[in-house]
């Protein structure tokens, strides 16, 4: 049986101007038990709305949410076996850290000795021993985030919903919390549904990623699937950097597709489900492109162009190449400590090659 079924959920909001915002448009996801699922998408794409529907703070316009075969549709928020870590943490300012963490147990009628013991354990789990007597206002952002986490986890929910819990933290803190959260999820064995608009965070933490845009599910898959075989333009551009070349499929050759661009350039890539004559786009990641050396044999799917810019960004050099017909390709060239050299000066004519297996083909206009 599917653990949690999010079955064609719809939700629209009326704006004050009378227009309708489709915050969730026919969203269907089957969530597995003990999975770390990330909802990824730009601001306003409906991530929080989906969490609200799951937690029971918002009625759905259509569809259903089914946990282990039981619909949650008519279950009020306070009876759902899910807990939320809110976008702004929502810690009770009039209670101490210990009271905040013990709130759920207190409400459930757990007696004080038992409650104190479990609050102590929870504080230890998130590394906040000795902070129990403080007020939330006396904690740093990262500490508040841990309190919010402990407050939810102490109730041992079936599913923990996390709404951008790391967005308020600085980069270092965020990276260490990513690892901690991931480890925590392993130890407690609870399904995490984690919201973020940071694609690196999503790629680093998730078992699976659900990419959203404008309230619609664009693609769901594990990190490498999302990165290597994006389903459409949006995913290709939102997750990582992509060079997109539009064209028509003109031939099929050993599982490879030959795509001809509008100006007659021939490119090669992989993709099934396309027939000759289909309009498609070729997705090339910057790290899959390489500038050829001077004495390399010519390749039949090379792209020629002129360097317009080369920027050293740390581990690689990001090179912008004008490939004609108004397109710029971005590629990552290895940096080998001999300086950028004159080979990457703007104005240099270069030939770019790629391996056809790395060139993923998506439908045009998807």
């Amino acid at each position, binding site marked *: 049986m599917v653990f949690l079924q999010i079955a064609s959920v719809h939700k629209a909001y009326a704006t004050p101007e009378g227009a309708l915002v489709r915050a969730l448009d026919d969203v269907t996801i089957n969530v597995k038990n003990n999975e770390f699922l990330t909802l990824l998408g730009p601001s306003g794409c409906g991530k929080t709305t989906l969490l609200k529907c799951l937690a029971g*703070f918002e009625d759905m316009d259509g569809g259903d949410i089914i946990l282990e075969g039981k619909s949650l549709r008519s279950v*009020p928020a*306070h009876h759902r076996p899910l807990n939320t870590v809110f976008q702004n943490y*929502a*810690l009770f300012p*009039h209670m101490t850290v210990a009271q905040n963490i013990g*709130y*759920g147990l207190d409400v459930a009628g757990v007696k004080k000795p038992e409650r104190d013991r479990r609050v102590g354990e929870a504080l230890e789990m998130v590394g906040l021993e000795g902070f129990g007597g403080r007020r939330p206002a006396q904690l740093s952002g990262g500490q508040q985030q841990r309190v919010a986490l402990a407050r*939810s986890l102490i*109730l041992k929910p079936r599913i923990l919903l996390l709404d951008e819990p790391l967005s308020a933290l600085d980069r270092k803190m965020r990276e260490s919390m990513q690892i901690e959260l991931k480890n925590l999820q392993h130890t407690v064995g609870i399904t995490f549904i984690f919201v973020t608009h940071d694609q690196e965070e999503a790629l680093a933490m998730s078992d699976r990623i659900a990419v959203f845009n404008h309230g619609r599910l664009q693609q769901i898959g594990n990190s490498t699937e999302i990165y290597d075989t994006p389903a459409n333009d949006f995913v290709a551009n939102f997750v990582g950097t992509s060079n997109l070349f539009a064209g028509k499929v003109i031939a099929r050759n050993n599982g490879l597709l030959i795509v001809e661009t509008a100006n007659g350039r021939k490119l090669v890539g992989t993709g099934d489900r396309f027939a000759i004559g289909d309009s498609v786009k070729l997705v090339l990641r910057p790290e899959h492109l390489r500038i050829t050396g001077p004495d390399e044999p010519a390749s039949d799917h090379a792209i020629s162009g002129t360097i317009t810019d080369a920027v050293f960004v740390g581990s690689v050099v990001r090179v912008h190449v004008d490939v004609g017909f108004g397109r710029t390709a971005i590629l990552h060239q290895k940096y080998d400590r001999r300086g950028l050299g004159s080979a990457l000066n703007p104005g240099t004519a270069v030939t770019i090659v790629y391996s056809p297996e790395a060139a993923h083909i998506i439908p045009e206009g998807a």
Partner: protein
Amino acid sequence: MIAGDTISTRKKRALFLLLMPITLVLGIFFLIPLGIMITYSFLEPGLYGGVEWNWYPYNYGRILGWPLNDYEEFEPIYLAIFLNSLKIAGLTVLFSLLICYPAAFWVSRMSPRRKNFVLFLITLPFFANLLIRIYAWLLLLRPTGFINSLLQGVGLIDQPLDMLFSNFAVIVGMVYIFTPFMFLPIYANVEKLDYSLVRASQDLGAGPVQTFLRVILPLTAPGIIGGSIIVFIPALGNFIVPAFLGGSKVQMTGNLIERSFLQSRDWPFGAALALLIMGSVVLLLVIQFARASRRESRGAA
């Protein structure tokens, strides 16, 4: 740079200068009259008004039963009236709270335009003179007034209800006058209540009643306490409402004070009554502050 001229000393100096005028005004127009009142309450009343400069604590004896001399006797009616005043002020607080608390939530969820309009409506009564507004209640409540005619017309009652000149009428008038003073502090508090906390409470398993008692009520308590204090204090000393709507049947300490000063011209006795009210209010505030600061220190510990 001069040694010691740090940001904090400069801030202190600026604060001192800024607070100077209000300190002077309060000192001259509040503390000095208060001193006069306290002094007069311990002086002997003059035969035709004014005071005789003799130590005379017996004004308090008339009210409290101690100390007494040959001329002054304990008149329990004053304490009874004082207790009734406490009751009326307390009930005024209670009823205006019952009106304002839910209303504040209602208004806080309105669109900004409607909100501003409603807030304007709440201040609207201040545009009309207080006496006229109280007098209007007299017309509404009297036996041949609007409410009785209406009820009789509908056939709910045969005889007109005797509403005027009772605690009921006084409380109605007081609640009417003081509702805006209760509403505004509560509204200011409710308005900034973070609804995500309400959601967090539900999320953690608390039903509506638990959420109200454990989250909403504690977080809006400062507004409730503030509003209650702002209503209770003037309600306790009010004399206009009981004068109009209480007639000779309902007296409040405010009426006694007014009469001692203006009619019987017994200034020391009036001053003693006024200080009694003030003392009880100060006592209440001290208790409240002590409780609040105890809670603060408990939270920080």
